């Protein structure tokens, strides 16, 4: 399991699941919130990765 992206997706899914169950009560709201946090995790990680690309360290 050497794929960083896959590990990041697994990490995001597990953390988003816990956050959704802590923050929301209704099942539908939990689903929406889970998707929202999960997408934020993944998209922002990729974005920050590209922003760091020019730096040599």
């Amino acid at each position, binding site marked *: *399991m*050497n794929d*960083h992206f896959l*590990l990041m997706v*697994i*990490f995001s899914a*597990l*953390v988003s*699941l*816990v956050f959704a*169950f*802590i923050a929301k*009560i209704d099942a539908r709201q939990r689903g929406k919130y889970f998707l929202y946090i999960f997408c934020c995790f993944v998209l922002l990680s990729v974005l920050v990765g590209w922003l760091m690309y020019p730096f040599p360290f």
Partner: protein
Amino acid sequence: MDMESLPEQVEPIAQVEPIAPAIRVHAGILKTFSACLFGLLIPGMGHAILRKWDRALVFMGSITAMFAFGLFLNARLFNPDFSDIFSILKFIADAGSGLLYWLCWLRGLGTGAPAAYTYDFGNVFIYTAGLLNMLVVVDAFDIALGRKP
């Protein structure tokens, strides 16, 4: 103003029942304390004591899975070392998982392989599992005090 045009009797305004505030049910000191204590020891157990079964299952499953993933990814379980601030913080984050951490540590698991490709990822998984468990205990505390349904 012509007084005859006014109605003789004014209809009384219907009494509106005030909206009842959310009922706060305090779980009791003993139950609150045991929910926090067992929640710290076993992820999700605090919610199970408060009979929030769905949350208990999700928290137990997610946090245990994160911890197991961390070990699988060659992470290191940091010892109770109080020599510098970073060691203390790493230990606190790791030990937040409760018995998961202590049992694995006592059995000598999680020695870590810093040269492994996934070492840092594994550490992050284990730190996050511990920190999430602390957050889950705070959530159980709020539920026990009736601040949350």
